[in-house]
C-alpha cells in the first residue's frame, strides 16, 4: 500500500508469520514508518480521536447492553437501574451518552477540515465517499441509540422520524404507510420497534468499524493530504508516522479527553433534554420535539421545506450531496487557504451550518422559519452553485513549491531527488 515495504523480520517467529499472515509487516509499514506530510496541523488529529471514540462507544455499549432490557415496560427503568445499581454503571452510561456527542464534535471538525483543505479531491475521492458513508451510519446509530432510553424525547423522535417515510404516500398512495408499518412492526411505535432499534444499534457500530478500516486503507494509498494541498514531492516532505504523529495525535487526544471528562463528570445532562427523563408516554406529546444538538442543522433543513416529501428529500440530500463534492468543486487548488474568493464562501457556509443548528432548536415560525429557509438555500447553493462557479472564475494565490518549502520558508534546500514513490501525482 502506497510505499515500498521497509520491514525486516528480525526473529524466527516474525519470519514464519511474515510468509503466512504479514500483520507485523503491515503494522510496520502502515503505522510506524508510513511517510506522512511533515506539515500536518492539529486539525489532522481528529482521525485518531474518532478511532478512539468509536472504541469507547463500542466498549461502553457492549457492557451497557448486558444490563439493558429492550422492552416497552423495562427499557427506561433498566437504564435507571444501570445508573443506580450496576457497578460503575453511571460512568458507563454517561460516558456512552456524552461519548456520542463528543463523537459528533470530532466528526464534524474532521469533515470541515476535509472540506477546507480539499481532502476530497483526486486522488482521494473514494476516501471521502467512505467518510460520508461513515457519517450516514453514525447518524443512524446515534438516532437508534437515543431511542433506546425510551424517554419522552426518545419515543417522539422515533415517531417523528419513522413517520417521515409516510411522505412516500405522495409518490405511490399507500407505499409510505405500508413502509412505516413495516418499520414499526405494528400500527404504532411499540415493542417490536424498540427491539429492532436495539438489534440494529448493536450491529451498526461494527459496520462502522468495517468502513473505518476501508477509510484508512483508502487513506494509505495516496497518503494524507496536508494544509498546503501540495502533493508530496520528495522524501524530505514526509516524516515517519511514528513517533511524530503518534505523539502529536496522542497529545491532541488527551486535550480532547479533558473536554470529554469535563462534560462527563460535571455536566453529564447538559447536552441532553430534560424531557428524556420522563418515561415514554404515547398519549402525551411533548410541547417541543427536538433532536439531540448534533442533528439540529438537519432538523432545521427538514422543517424549512413546506412539503413533507421534499423536506425528507432535502434532509437526505443535505448529507448525500457530500458524495458529489469531489466533482462539484471545479478548482484545481485543494486548500482554501490559497483560494481568495472561495475562502469567504467557505466561512459563510460554516456560519450557516451553526445558524441552522440554532434554528433547528427553535419553533419553525416567523423569522426563525425565514432564516431557516435562507440558510437552507445557502447550504445547497454552496455545493451546487458556488463550488462549481467559483472554481472557474477564481485566480488562486501562489502555492508553495513544496511542503518542505512551506515549512522552512525560502531557506529550504531545493527539493531532493524523487526517491519517494508515495507522492502519486
Amino acid at each position: 500500500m502506497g510505499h515500498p515495504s521497509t520491514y525486516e523480520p528480525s526473529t524466527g517467529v516474525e519470519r514464519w508469520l511474515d510468509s503466512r499472515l504479514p500483520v507485523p509487516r503491515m503494522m510496520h509499514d502502515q503505522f510506524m514508518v508510513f511517510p506522512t506530510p511533515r506539515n500536518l496541523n492539529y486539525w489532522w488529529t481528529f482521525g485518531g480521536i474518532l478511532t478512539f471514540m468509536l472504541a469507547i462507544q463500542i466498549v461502553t455499549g457492549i457492557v451497557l447492553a448486558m444490563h439493558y432490557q429492550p422492552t416497552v415496560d423495562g427499557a427506561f427503568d433498566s437504564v435507571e437501574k444501570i445508573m443506580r445499581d450496576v457497578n460503575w454503571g453511571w460512568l458507563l452510561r454517561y460516558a456512552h451518552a456524552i461519548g456520542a456527542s463528543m463523537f459528533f464534535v470530532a466528526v464534524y471538525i474532521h469533515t470541515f477540515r476535509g472540506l477546507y483543505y480539499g481532502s476530497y479531491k483526486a486522488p482521494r475521492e473514494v476516501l471521502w465517499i467512505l467518510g460520508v458513508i461513515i457519517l450516514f451510519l453514525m447518524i443512524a446509530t446515534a438516532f437508534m441509540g437515543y431511542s433506546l432510553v425510551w424517554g419522552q424525547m426518545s419515543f417522539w423522535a422515533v415517531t417523528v422520524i419513522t413517520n417521515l417515510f409516510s411522505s412516500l404516500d405522495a409518490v405511490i398512495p399507500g407505499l409510505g404507510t405500508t413502509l412505516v408499518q413495516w418499520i414499526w412492526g405494528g400500527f404504532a411505535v411499540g415493542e417490536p420497534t424498540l427491539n429492532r432499534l436495539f438489534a440494529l444499534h448493536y450491529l451498526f457500530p461494527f459496520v462502522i468499524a468495517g468502513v473505518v478500516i476501508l477509510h484508512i486503507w483508502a487513506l494509505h494509498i495516496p497518503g494524507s493530504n496536508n494544509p498546503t494541498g501540495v502533493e508530496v514531492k520528495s522524501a524530505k516532505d514526509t516524516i515517519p508516522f511514528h513517533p511524530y504523529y503518534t505523539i502529536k495525535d496522542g497529545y491532541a487526544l488527551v486535550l480532547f479527553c479533558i473536554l470529554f471528562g469535563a462534560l462527563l463528570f460535571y455536566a453529564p445532562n447538559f447536552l441532553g433534554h430534560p424531557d428524556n427523563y420522563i418515561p415514554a408516554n404515547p398519549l402525551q406529546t411533548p410541547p417541543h420535539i427536538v433532536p439531540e444538538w448534533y442533528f439540529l442543522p438537519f432538523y432545521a433543513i427538514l422543517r424549512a421545506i413546506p412539503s413533507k416529501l421534499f423536506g425528507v428529500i432535502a434532509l437526505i440530500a443535505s448529507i448525500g450531496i457530500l458524495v458529489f463534492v469531489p466533482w462539484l468543486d471545479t478548482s484545481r487548488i485543494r486548500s482554501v487557504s490559497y483560494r481568495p474568493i472561495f475562502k469567504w464562501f467557505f466561512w459563510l457556509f460554516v456560519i450557516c451550518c451553526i445558524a441552522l443548528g440554532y434554528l433547528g432548536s427553535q419553533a419553525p415560525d416567523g423569522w426563525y422559519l425565514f432564516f431557516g429557509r435562507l440558510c437552507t438555500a445557502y447550504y445547497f447553493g454552496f455545493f451546487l452553485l458556488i463550488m462549481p462557479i467559483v472554481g472557474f472564475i477564481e485566480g488562486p494565490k501562489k502555492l508553495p513549491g513544496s511542503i518542505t518549502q512551506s515549512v522552512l520558508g525560502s531557506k529550504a534546500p531545493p527539493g531532493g531527488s524523487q526517491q519517494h514513490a508515495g507522492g502519486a501525482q
Partner: protein
Amino acid sequence: MNVVRTLAVALLAGLAIPATALGAEGTKIEAQDWSFAPPFGRFDKGQLQRGYKVYQYVCANCHSARLLSYRNLGEPGGPGFSHEAVEALASQAQITDGPDDTGQMYQRPGVPSDRFRSPYANDAAARAANNGALPPDLSVMAKARAGGSDYLYALLTGYGTAPSDMKMSQGMQYNTAFPGHQIAMPNPLVEGVVEYTDGTKPTPDNYAKDVSAFLMWAAEPKLEERYKVGARIMIFLLVFAVIMYLSKRAVWARLHRRDHSESA
C-alpha cells in the same frame, strides 16, 4: 488561524444552544446556592435527612418514587442514615407482598430492599383521588425538568395569588415557576407541617430547599462519587497533557535539529 479559533469557539457555543433554548415561557427560576454544585460539592447529609422527612410526610402522600429503595437511604453519598434507621424507616411502610401459599396477597412491614411504597395502586387510582390530575413519579424529577433543583425550589415556593387579569381553571393554583402558571397541586408546604429536630427552622422555604436537595440526590445518587472520580481523572488528564505536550516538543525537536544541520 484567528478564523479557525473563532470557529472552535462558535462550535462550542453551539453546544450550549439546546440547553439555553429550554427556558419555559414567562417563568422565573432563580439559581440557588446548593452544597452539591460542581465540581467539588457534596450533599449536606442533614439537609437530605430533613428532605427525606418532608418527602415522606408531604410528597409521598400523593407522589411515588418507584426507582428508589429504602436501602438507598443508607448508601454512601446519600442521606447517610444508619442501618438501624433504614430498617426502622422501611418498616413504617406497609408493603403488599405475595401471593402466599394460599394464593392470597398480604401486607407486611417494609424491609430495606423494598422499593419506596407508592401511594396509589396505579395511575387510574391516582387520578381518581386527585381531581383527574396525575401526580408524577419523583424518582428522576430533578433531572426531568429544565433547571433541576432550582426549578423544584422555585415551584415549591412559587405559589401566590393570580394576577387579576388571569383566568384560572377550576381547581388550579397559581404558581410563578410552573409553565403556564396553573398547577393542579395545591401548595404542599405550610409552616410547621413537618417537625424538624435538628434546630433548623420549620419554614416553607427550608422545607422547599431541603426536599429539592433530597430529590436531586434521588435523581442522581452517584453524584458525589462522580465528582470524586472526576477530580482524580481530570487531575490525571491535566498532568498527562503536560507530559504529552513536552514529549511532543522533544520528539519534534529532532526534526527541527535535522533541518538546521542540513541547511547549515
